[in-house]
């Protein structure tokens, strides 16, 4: 099967994607479908976005050669330092892109969902910067688990609405944001935080995050003389950082692309979030994709130690790249990720987000050739995860 980088006109990547939305969301989605490419491609938009990425976010983020980690694996490992972005993760790339787009569409209010709180913080930040009202939906369980990020969002002026329906986590926050959009369709833009949702969100978010792989190519060329590594590794929840890190390599077939999914307590433990291993095709959050569900089509509760990977599905493009074989999927358990995260602290003096630690752990799963060049996307910093790490240290 041929690998598609972009969706077709109906929003499909292979057999995944589309826009399975109630009629009540149709007008807003149709407006986005009609206008997103034109707005994003306009020179004025690009100039504003690129300026903000440079001066406000601090891009380009470094591509750092992790010498001691490389030595351990007898290879050349480069870390793409998305953790050094303003707000501490790659999420800000998308939030800023979408907020400029929302302004061009004349929207006056922003809504967002968040799990760990990283996307919520990034969006609250973008809204503060632009002086736009911001409402963030967050599962009640996550509000408790991620108190510091709730505090940050509030300081930034956002209203945080705890969601008590369903499992009270990220998928329910997403449902609730969609419901709010249905009930308040005028003047409101919904900034989805990952490459999920109805067309055009997966493509739009992918394009905003694609700056990651664009920079990797340029930096690697300066560093090694070739813009192509042997592999790129990234973690996958919904899949936005992986999509960003893979995007400009998708057509370079000699580069192996590796996605680390959260196996949770183990693939067969009943406590997992590994969507390609455990999921089947269905309709979730407005698109056809792979997600974990019962035989009766009810969405299953995911589990991952990392709140950012604690999502039952993956974006439709990632489901397609699984289907086409372009991306190789590895399952990483909670314990394995924690160990890899701790190891990076000691070897490189970098505390990675538990999400990103899954990508580091995947290095152990691969049959590495000596001296190969590997880029690991370090999607976020681990400050938010201190409690999780410290609990691990004590146990």
């Amino acid at each position, binding site marked *: 099967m041929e690998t598609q980088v972009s969706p077709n006109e*109906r929003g499909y990547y292979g057999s995944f994607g*589309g*826009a*399975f*939305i*109630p*009629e*009540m*969301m*149709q*007008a807003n989605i149709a407006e986005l479908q009609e206008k997103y490419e034109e707005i994003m491609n306009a020179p004025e938009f690009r100039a504003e976005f690129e300026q903000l990425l440079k001066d406000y976010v601090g891009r380009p983020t470094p591509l750092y050669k992790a010498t001691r980690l490389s030595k351990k694996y007898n290879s050349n490992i480069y870390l793409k330092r998305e953790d050094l972005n303003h707000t501490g993760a790659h999420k800000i790339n998308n939030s800023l892109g979408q907020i400029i787009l929302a302004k061009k569409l004349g929207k006056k209010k922003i809504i967002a969902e968040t799990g760990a709180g990283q996307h919520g913080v990034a969006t609250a930040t973008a809204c503060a910067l632009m002086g736009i009202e911001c409402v963030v939906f967050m599962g009640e369980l996550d509000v408790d688990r991620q108190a510091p990020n709730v505090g940050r969002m509030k300081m930034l002026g956002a209203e945080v609405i705890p969601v008590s*329906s*369903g499992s009270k986590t990220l*998928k*329910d926050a997403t*449902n609730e944001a*969609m*419901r709010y959009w*249905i*009930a*308040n*369709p*005028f003047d409101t833009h919904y900034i989805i935080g990952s490459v999920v949702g109805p067309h055009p969100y997966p493509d739009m978010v992918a394009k905003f995050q694609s700056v990651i792989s664009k920079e990797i190519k340029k930096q690697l060329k300066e560093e090694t003389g070739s813009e192509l590594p042997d592999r790129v590794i990234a973690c996958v929840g919904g899949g936005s950082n992986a999509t960003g890190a893979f995007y400009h390599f998708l057509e370079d077939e000699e580069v192996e692309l590796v996605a680390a999914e959260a196996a949770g307590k183990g693939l067969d433990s009943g406590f997992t979030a590994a969507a390609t291993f455990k999921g*089947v095709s*269905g*309709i*979730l*959050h*407005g698109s056809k994709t792979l997600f974990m*569900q019962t*035989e*009766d*089509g*009810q*969405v299953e509760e995911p589990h991952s130690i990392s709140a950012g990977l604690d999502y039952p599905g993956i974006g439709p493009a990632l489901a397609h790249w699984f289907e086409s074989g372009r991306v190789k999927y590895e399952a990483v358990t909670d314990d394995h990720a924690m160990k890899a995260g701790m190891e990076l602290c000691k070897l490189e003096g970098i505390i990675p987000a538990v999400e990103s630690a899954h990508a580091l752990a995947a290095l152990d799963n691969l049959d590495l050739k000596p001296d190969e060049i590997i880029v690991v996307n370090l999607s976020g910093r681990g400050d938010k995860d201190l409690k999780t790490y410290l609990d691990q240290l004590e146990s």
Partner: protein
Amino acid sequence: MNRINKLLAEKDNILSIYFTAGYPSFDDTRTVVKSLQDNGADLIEIGVPFSDPIADGPTIQYTNTIALENGMTVENLFQQLVDVREDVEVPLIMMSSLNPILQYGFEEFCKKCKEVGVDGLIIPDLPVEEYIAEYKTIVEGYGLRNVILITPASTDDRIRLIDDNTDAFIYMVSSSAITGTNTKFASDFSAFASRLEQMKLKNPRITGFGISDKESFDKVCETSKGGIIGSAFVKALKDSKDVAKSIGDFMVQFKN
């Protein structure tokens, strides 16, 4: 003739009631359907519970959660409906999110609907374009009617497309809202109703969302063929010890 078309041909002021299968108890489906018919419902929408319904407000979401906890599944629901036509004559419509139907098998679902005597489908997250491309021939092959929603934000072109691709009634969402809420009900609705009137559609319209009692039902009957009550009805079943009696108590207001 499909029971829905027959009803539409014979009657105005159609009172349609939605309930969630498996709520309040697993075994209530048949009691609810029969009691609704006996108490004057013209049309009944049987809701298939889903873990993540996007288009429903908190009241119906809650009934979905309870129904799933009670063990309701598509398979169980069809088993409960096997002999529903022995004592129920009113048209029955299955209302479900797309995913439970897909996992059951779309065609198998339609086949079972026909077998048990269900007359139509409402799948809120199946947009008309996808319906036409993938599912329309299957639905029509089993003699079912697919009811599609329109809202005040739907463009004329889109409403025409929907009108052209359905043969029963159009589900007119009264306002830009989710079920069980009724923001801006009045102002949105009258402008929308007169726009639709001018479009001279081939299908009649039945109004849903924000209708909770006799007064709001009568109001929508002035500008459409009838009204659909969902949240207000399932709310009346909450904590009910005697479902048939609760239904009688709720429906009495509609008896002239």
